[in-house]
């Protein structure tokens, strides 16, 4: 019997909001798919386009960048910079023909454990029928 495809998601979570949000989901024992590999970064504004491309190259099927809601950034304006930069990365990836659904961004605050689990659930549901991401993956 063929095993069901399980997508691998790399999530760049900011230390102050989204990471705490995912933590809350964990300590509250909420159930969500185990497909996500969280990577804590100091701020969503510190996520370089290279991190995202690198994740795709190393075999991620989807990449999520998550930060504080606008106005809540621990560093006052880091997420505003991120918003601009990520918009450009998203457009560029779409332009070269990567499926736009494979790259997402979200705002998750430290209190939004439920929202975090929902985002991951939806992301996994979107990625499952799409199959593995092979376009940017490192050639073997």
């Amino acid at each position, binding site marked *: 019997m063929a095993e069901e495809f399980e997508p691998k998601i790399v999530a760049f979570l900011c230390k102050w909001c989204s990471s705490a949000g995912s933590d809350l989901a964990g300590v509250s024992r909420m159930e969500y798919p185990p497909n996500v590999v969280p990577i804590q970064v100091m701020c969503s504004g510190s996520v370089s*386009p*290279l991190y995202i*491309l*690198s994740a795709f*190259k190393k075999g991620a099927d989807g990449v999520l960048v998550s930060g504080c809601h*606008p106005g809540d950034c621990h560093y006052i*304006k880091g997420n*505003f*910079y991120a*918003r*601009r*930069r*990520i*918009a*450009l*990365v*998203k*457009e*560029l*990836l*779409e*332009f*070269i*023909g*990567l*499926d*736009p659904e494979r790259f*997402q*961004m*979200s*705002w998750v605050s430290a209190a939004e454990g439920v929202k975090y689990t929902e*985002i991951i659930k939806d992301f996994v549901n979107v990625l499952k029928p799409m199959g593995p991401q092979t*376009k*940017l*993956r*490192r*050639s073997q």
Partner: protein
Amino acid sequence: MVKLEDLKHEALKALKSGKVKYIIGYADGTDQFKATPVFLKNPEDADKLVWNPSCVHNLTKFIVDEKRRKKREKNPDERAVGIIVKGCDSRAINVLIQEKFINRDDVHILGVSCESTGVVDEKKLAKKLKGKTAHKIEFGADGQFKVTTEEGSLNIPAEEILAERCLECQANFPVVYDVFLGDKDKKTNDTPYKSMQKIEDMSTEERWQFWDEQFSRCIRCYACRSACPMCYCDECVVDSINFAIEPDTTAEEKAHKIKWIDKSPTESENIIYHLVRAMHLAGRCIDCGECERVCPMEIPIRFLNKKLEKDAKELFGYEAGFDPDIPSLVSSFKDEDPEDFIR
């Protein structure tokens, strides 16, 4: 029209006054009709200058080199460097000033207009001439280029042999200069992203097919990086070799050095290289088209830059190179930036 005598005169004046170290301009080359960059150090050299549609190069790259050279010298000559710029090149200078890479006083800018046409694309010209060799090319009247071949001269409508970027040019005169020659006739252009349209119209899969084929040809010679006036980092992120290995660098440190991109020209690495390059030029690329011109594999790199240029304009209302006093695209934000893609 830019009168060549005026250009020579201005160059002579600047050289004689001694306020410039040298002037970077164009002179006749040795290969057919093509002009070549020239460094004028003495007043008597000013006669070498030419200005014609084959002056395709963006000379601002030499300003970047000059800054590096100055840094290495013990007693650098602090005088300005003279440079001849077209519209697009002048915007490159603006970006360099905006990023505080150079000061406005470091350059003495001789701006020339592109005669409401632009510069020639040698591949298009060769196709047009069907085997004949062009020896000379000049700006003609009514948007035509006068091409002289071994069989005499002929007039070719400029649109047919213009470089792709000139067809999409929004301002074909310098926006920053000390001396300006020619006319400031703004070309009206309703379709500044026309050439890119055919890719945007494709489906996701078709786009991937297209780019996959293009990127797989890349040989990673980094000519695009070398020709780009905006690629001036001392250490490039794609060079995994240039981290300092000192006597006390441990094997562990070497092993843990992040290698973002492998040197081998395999497909996945090529894609990352080109995307990173495009991202680093977001809001900085002034569309001088040098990257694409120098590419030995004829990869349409310009489309990537053009795409981000379009996004910068449409999403954030930002245009590169017109105002050196505003903050750059990715170091600024507005409250109303789009966020409909964010959950």
